[in-house]
């Protein structure tokens, strides 16, 4: 499969080129690392930086977003828990996804999740970055399936805690709450 980051007309060329090249190179690097520790991600075969393109493995499946529209309750629980485990492993390895939404998670025929689109990801030790992943996932659920959010996130966190432990999981949830409260109406002092 060819994944190409095409130029955006709305961005000035200098900014656009830098972003596309940076994200392409970065995605390839992160995927290699995640593949190495056994996280289900599509493998990158070849990078063409000049055209900001990646040739990568194609995952057969559907986006989590459309999967949730039809799947049975117990499958959903199972998928959420598996996704929680995968996300925790990724975080434990010092990687935050940066765009963990329902359209960047693929569910294969065995009801197993794969994670894709690492253009916004980061090597990081900051718990805030991991919390942002969980926040993004939760909000993405909320904006498409508000009624599924609670149950899905509960299963997700069960899987997540099973890898990082209860204590760390509740610390991260505290951070998620903090992030949700931020950004509502913030003006820098004296401005």
């Amino acid at each position, binding site marked *: 499969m060819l994944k190409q980051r095409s130029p*955006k007309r709305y961005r*000035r060329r200098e*900014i656009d080129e830098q972003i596309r090249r940076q994200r392409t190179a970065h995605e390839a690097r992160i995927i290699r690392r995640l593949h190495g520790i056994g996280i289900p991600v599509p493998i990158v075969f070849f990078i063409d930086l000049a055209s900001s393109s990646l040739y990568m493995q194609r995952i057969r499946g559907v986006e989590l977003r459309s999967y949730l529209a039809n799947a049975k309750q117990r499958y959903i629980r199972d998928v959420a828990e598996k996704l929680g485990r995968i996300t925790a492993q990724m975080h434990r390895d010092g990687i935050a996804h940066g765009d963990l939404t329902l359209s960047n998670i693929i569910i294969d025929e065995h009801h197993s999740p794969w994670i894709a689109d690492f253009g916004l990801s980061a090597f990081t030790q900051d718990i805030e970055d991991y919390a942002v992943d969980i926040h*993004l996932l939760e909000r*993405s659920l909320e904006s498409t399936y508000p009624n599924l959010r609670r149950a899905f996130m509960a299963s997700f966190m069960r899987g997540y805690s099973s890898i990082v432990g209860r204590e760390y999981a509740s610390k991260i949830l505290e951070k998620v709450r903090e992030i949700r409260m931020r*950004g*509502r109406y913030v*003006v*820098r002092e004296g401005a």
Partner: protein
Amino acid sequence: MKRFICLGIESTAHTFGVGVAGSDGSILSNAMRVYKPEKGGIHPREASQHHARHALEVVREALEKARLEPSDIDVIAFSIGPGMGPCLRTGATVARAIAATLGKPLVGVNHSIAHIEVGKLATGCRDPVVLYVAGGNTLITALVEGRYRILGETLDIAAGNCLDSFGIAAGIGPMPQPEIIAREGKRIHSLPYKVKGMDVSFSGLLTAAERLLEEGAAVADVALSITETVYSMLVEVLERALAYLEKSEILLVGGLARSRRLVEMIRLMCEDHQAKLHIVPDEYAGDNGAMIAWTGLLYYMAGMTISLEESHVRPRARIDEVDVRWSP
């Protein structure tokens, strides 16, 4: 059907505004006074004193322009939040006094929702992805199952606040100055471009731009770099939201809707996605009383009035707390 009339009071930040709207969708008046600090940025207490000083004359002006008597008013609305506590309290106090004096019902309107609803009214758009960008707010939202769901927002400061702060630090003044000076810029400096999902972060970018100024970079170049970077980030997350929700309309509201360059960029993005772009007219882009009056009517007709006792302001109110009962 009887036409209801609402008087709406806005006092979230700089602006003390009073508008009058009719339930047939007419805006009958939109009066305001804007607090301008002598130097630097906004000081909430000073702003609230400004609002208190001008409250009466603005209410009077709004009624005169609408050619109405106080007894013609059916409902009083005010901005309940989000915003600066002292400023909000001034508007709420005025609204309570009028409601109690006239014996009319009171409505506490969510400020962010008011920006969107007046945009919908003025442009006629139906089911948009909304970008709300202003001095204190940066939000991407859409109506999903009866609430404005937050798809993306700032993780720290608002886009408008970032550009205003930069302008003040550079000695050129707040928006639109940075954008005007940017037109003379020639060189783009690389600044932190921080996007997470549909969220954005501007504080690192602001610090980096201020550092460039300290190092002696040309103001026009830094102004060009910061405006282009901030707008690129906004349009990118907006594009992602549009694709994510599979919608075909975009509505731009808030003070930054007056930015020509931002509008130009969003227009290009919309063309590429065959989406229709709606922009709130200038007079309703910044904070104003008319938007509170119109949204107050929507609340009122959906039965969402409040008693005096529960009318305390909510500086950190969220847009997704409100049941949008008036929309299908």
